[in-house]
């Protein structure tokens, strides 16, 4: 069960994408999300698709993990496609069927929107597939650092994130244990009307909360005993470093963005 517990779906590896600084990845994805909405013709869509697929293949993450990551959104992608197909009334009629008429504009719009979705999901899931949660936390702490001046609790936020990440598996194991213990006392989570099942969750949640609070209290004490006194004057074991490869990727991405804007303005 432990394997399914890892938050996100990090797939260990040593590819270029894995080794990039998490800040590089986050920044590029952030801008990618924007420029996807700038694409407006076949050439620009192809450019972005090629970029995303190149990233995907470079990462060497097995396709099945990527498909698994897309599973929850397949429905959304197909739904928007069909919606556009039925609703849009532009271009020429390409098919008539019973009371429906399908327009060429609808088809194109449907494909474009579905492709947009697909690219967004693909690129963002590449981030979680190739970056450990702790790296993401480090990157967020570092990137939010300027907000410190406005009294934004950056360090505390990052610490909270990393402690939550550390305790998720522990709490999952505990949930499992409590649900077994309650099941052995005859609590039934799996069958019966939904109302009964919701009621059955109560004896699961109460002990879980009680223990989580106890853990929190003990952890706070242990942290204090080990000299924790906030973010001031703290050093860090893990360090983030921009390497040559990060700069290379930034330049490459800048070229893609420039090319996209160019192609777009020519259409």
């Amino acid at each position, binding site marked *: 069960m432990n394997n399914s517990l890892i938050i996100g779906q990090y797939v260990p590896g040593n590819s270029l994408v894995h080794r990039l600084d998490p800040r590089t990845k986050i920044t590029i994805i952030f801008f990618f999300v924007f420029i996807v909405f700038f694409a407006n013709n076949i050439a620009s869509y192809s450019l972005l698709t090629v970029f995303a697929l190149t990233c995907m293949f470079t990462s060497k993450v097995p396709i099945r993990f990527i498909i698994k990551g897309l599973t929850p959104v397949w429905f959304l992608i197909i739904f928007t496609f069909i919606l556009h197909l039925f609703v849009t009334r532009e271009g020429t009629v390409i098919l008539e069927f019973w009371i429906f008429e399908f327009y060429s504009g609808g088809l194109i719009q449907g494909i474009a929107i579905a492709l947009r979705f697909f690219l967004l999901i693909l690129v963002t899931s590449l981030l979680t597939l190739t970056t450990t949660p*702790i790296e993401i936390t480090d990157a967020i702490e570092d990137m939010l650092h300027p907000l410190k001046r406005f009294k934004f609790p950056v360090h505390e936020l990052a610490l909270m994130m990393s402690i939550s990440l550390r305790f998720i598996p522990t709490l999952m*194991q505990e949930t499992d244990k409590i649900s077994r213990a309650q099941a052995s006392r005859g609590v039934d989570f799996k069958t019966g009307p939904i109302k009964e099942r919701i009621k059955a969750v109560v004896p699961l949640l109460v002990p879980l909360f009680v223990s989580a609070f106890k853990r929190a209290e*003990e952890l706070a*004490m*242990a*942290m204090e*005993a080990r*000299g924790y006194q906030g973010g001031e004057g703290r*050093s860090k*074991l893990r360090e983030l470093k921009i390497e040559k490869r990060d700069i290379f990727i930034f330049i490459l991405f800048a070229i893609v963005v420039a090319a996209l804007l160019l192609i777009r303005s020519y259409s």
Partner: protein
Amino acid sequence: MSKKLVEFRNVSFRYDEDGPWVLKNCSFEIYENEWVAIIGHNGSGKSTIAKLLNGLLFPQEGEIVIGGQQVNEESIWSIRKEVGMVFQNPDNQFVGATVQDDVAFGMENRGVQRDEMQKRITETLSAVRMQDYRLTEPHRLSGGQKQRVAIASVLAISPKVLILDEATAMLDPSGRKEIMDTVGEIQESSGLSLITITHDLQEVVQADRVIVMNNGNKWREASPREIFLEKDALRTIGLDVPFVAILAEELKHAGVSLKSTPLNQEELLEDLWILHSRT
């Protein structure tokens, strides 16, 4: 006698203004490179002593001095550098996402440089024989392994006093023995003072000195051998006596004239051999 490191002077403590006194006029001393075991029934105030030593709590009366420094609001940060503490539950004191992050936590708090941290991590992890688990996440470790990491994390800041508050209580007997052996080795080689709070008799026997707590009072302070001579008195305050000590007593009752008071199997065996060779 070696140097005095920890001193409790007439310490009294209670959690609430109008609550009962949890510690009453407690005084004791702990010396450099000494191993002291604190025993006592549940609620006798042992954990409270540990928390007072680390500045997690402050006494209402009396004073606590560690390495010449009085424990108070101003001195806690330097006190916590001198006093390392390992708690009972291995899960609830593991802060880092991986073993090395956890060992680094205490050092990060003190602003130790990265190179130095790497060095200390390697050293302390090999001292507790966990060097192969540097990048492992906590949920992939056993309870005993987590406690080892907790010990390494505390050792990383090179404290002068190491307190184990029932740190082995959640482990099985073999895990317990392994940890105590490791800790014993570290104590001997590094000149650390060790305070173990425990219900485990074997740990008590290993100590140089035992402090017995009863209802917030210091009941006795003596060597393990002397303490376990008072079998009946120990039982009346709800404590146990090691099996070998009981066996030796029964043997004496049965007319087997052992000449010493053995505390472990080897000593008993030795005595029996001596007896055997004499008859």
